[in-house]
């Protein structure tokens, strides 16, 4: 590609946008209109057809114009882009300022060999990529290589570093990852969606069955069933519920993270994953503002971990993850850290918070739980006091356990390069941040903590969400102060 040639998106984007706007905008509006005005479709089919054609022509014209007006080129170490019909947006980005370059292929793009390339700078104020282009795959790859300043021959690099710097997740681990990431709340969403779907579309077919279910659900008829059947019913429901959420979680992670691989060449980290929508990210190690080792509750029991990274532009969109490696045990984690992220060497021991703070962690949660209870009481006391009090007890128990686990997990570690803060109850997190990546720090002390000589230590790093604080609670006042003063002493 010549350096100064003006380039455009692939023409397929025009067709894609036309079809997309037809189905996403025109059809729903038409449906709404038909329902509101109670028109019979069969009588007005020609009119609908004509309106459709007009919409398509209009949409084609605007999209072609848009395509024509969207240009980009690379020159003198900068990438220039311009887009917009009425409001023109021009952007010029220094290549050295680029934080991450991502390639993404949706299923349909893969068949046409087209890729979306996303270019991000360190700006976290906008929630989307700075520049987005649709190009032929090989063009996108060559631009990516140009922007990340890497030698073109990816294959060669891979072979050279195959043993040390290349990791691939096998299918077994992927399924295990899905199992450990089960979210218990998601089942309700799935069931509700399925129920609504049945209610809306299949109700006339399944009318009798639904009535039966309604009978069972109706509390006045519950008394007619024996205690045994009731318990059996609840157990059956719980088992079904578990199966649904486990299946959902496994399938979701399988589709999302299929064929997960990570490699490092020079200072670039390359990540690739996806079954239908293949995503390919690369970013400079220098741009990582923090590494997180996260553990869900199940992972804590099985002693498995997920490595995540905070890089502006990585994992900032819907359906994207911040994962660096989905599932590792202790040894694998140390291996990956020492081969791929050698600045973040392993930390064997973190300093735990004092024993005496145990009840402080629990007490705070207990009070929060109690407040939720009091609010819920006013809403529910008319309906059913038994359900209210049992749910209430469960919530308070959950909160207290969360507090206890947070006490067990909280800790910190500091050396001359790195600060490590550990926090979180059911969801444990260990944040590892290089000292020169800390943007600002804060030390908080509540009135109650003052008596016990404790404080909370928080640091802020650059990330996809602005103003997010990493915080370990209830440190010893002295330790907190020592770390706080050391943070910016060099």
């Amino acid at each position, binding site marked *: 590609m010549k350096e100064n040639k003006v380039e455009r998106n692939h023409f397929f984007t025009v067709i894609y946008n036309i079809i997309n706007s037809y189905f996403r905008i025109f059809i729903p509006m038409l449906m709404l209109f038909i329902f509101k005005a109670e028109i019979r479709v069969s009588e007005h089919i020609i009119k609908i057809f004509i309106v459709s054609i007009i919409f398509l022509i209009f949409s084609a014209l605007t999209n072609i114009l848009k395509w024509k007006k969207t240009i980009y080129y690379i020159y003198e170490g900068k990438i220039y882009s311009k887009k917009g019909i009425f409001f023109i947006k021009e952007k010029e980005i220094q290549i050295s300022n680029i934080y991450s370059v991502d390639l993404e292929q949706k299923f349909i793009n893969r068949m046409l060999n087209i890729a979306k390339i996303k270019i991000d700078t360190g700006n976290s104020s906008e929630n989307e990529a700075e520049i987005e282009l649709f190009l032929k795959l090989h063009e996108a790859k060559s631009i990516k290589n140009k922007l990340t300043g890497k030698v073109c021959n990816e294959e060669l690099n891979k072979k050279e570093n195959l043993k040390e710097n290349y990791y691939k997740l096998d299918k077994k681990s992927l399924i295990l990852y899905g199992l450990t990431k089960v979210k218990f709340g998601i089942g309700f969403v799935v069931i509700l969606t399925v129920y609504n779907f049945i209610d809306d579309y299949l109700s006339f077919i399944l009318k009798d069955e639904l009535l039966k279910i309604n009978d069972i659900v109706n509390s006045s008829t519950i008394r007619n069933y024996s205690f045994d059947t009731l318990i059996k019913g609840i157990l059956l429901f719980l088992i079904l519920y578990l199966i649904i959420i486990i299946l959902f979680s496994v399938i979701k992670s399988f589709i999302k993270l299929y064929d997960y691989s990570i490699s490092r060449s020079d200072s670039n980290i390359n990540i690739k994953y996806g079954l239908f929508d293949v995503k390919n990210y690369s970013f400079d190690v220098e741009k990582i503002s923090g590494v997180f080792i996260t553990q869900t509750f199940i992972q804590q029991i099985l002693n498995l971990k997920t490595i995540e990274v905070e890089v502006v532009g990585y994992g900032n969109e819907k359906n994207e993850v911040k994962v660096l490696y989905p599932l590792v045990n202790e040894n694998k984690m140390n291996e990956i850290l020492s081969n791929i992220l050698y600045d973040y060497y392993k930390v064997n021991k973190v300093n735990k918070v004092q024993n005496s703070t145990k009840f402080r962690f629990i007490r705070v949660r207990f009070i929060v739980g109690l407040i939720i209870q009091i609010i819920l009481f006013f809403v529910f006391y008319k309906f059913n006091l038994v359900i209210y009090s049992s749910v209430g007890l469960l919530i308070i128990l959950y909160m207290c356990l969360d507090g206890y686990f947070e006490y067990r997990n909280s800790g910190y570690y500091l050396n001359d390069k790195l600060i490590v803060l550990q926090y979180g109850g059911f969801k444990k997190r260990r944040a590892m941040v290089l000292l020169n990546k800390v943007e*600002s*720090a804060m030390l908080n002390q*509540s009135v109650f903590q003052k008596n016990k000589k404790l404080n909370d230590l928080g640091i802020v790093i*650059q990330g996809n969400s602005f103003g997010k604080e990493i915080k370990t609670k209830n440190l010893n006042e002295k330790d907190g102060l020592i770390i706080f003063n050391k943070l910016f002493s060099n």
Partner: protein
Amino acid sequence: MDLKFKNIDKKAILLWRINGLILTLILGVISLLIYKIFSVFWGNIGFGIMGITGILCVIIHPFFEYKQWKYGIFEDKIEILHGIYFNKHIIVPISKIQYLNISQGPIQKKLNLSSVQIFTAGNEVEIEAISYVESKKIVNLINDVINNNEVAENERE
């Protein structure tokens, strides 16, 4: 190096009292609406919250908040101390500052006050309620420090 924490402008107390009063009035209007339209019970609770907010935000808080608020601009960092129930101590190294903002609301303008917002790549820190002249001074000072640091760095290279 000027190793001293400074207090903010004394007019801050007045500013916070006015803000508290506005908040109380808004709560009052909302409570009245709830009282009239939805339920007497929740309306009364609303009035209760309004009363507590009024006492705290208009009468008690501003005075203590003023006593707690301190800021210091040092050679390599900015430090801020504030908070009544939660004492907050914030450090922002000057090398991490991306840009500065001076902002002034309508009430602040009347009282000749302004606040300085300090932006890093990760978050925003605010020095509240200082006189406009003072905030200009702060911005210039920080700019000088940043420039000096840059010059020093270039020389080193």
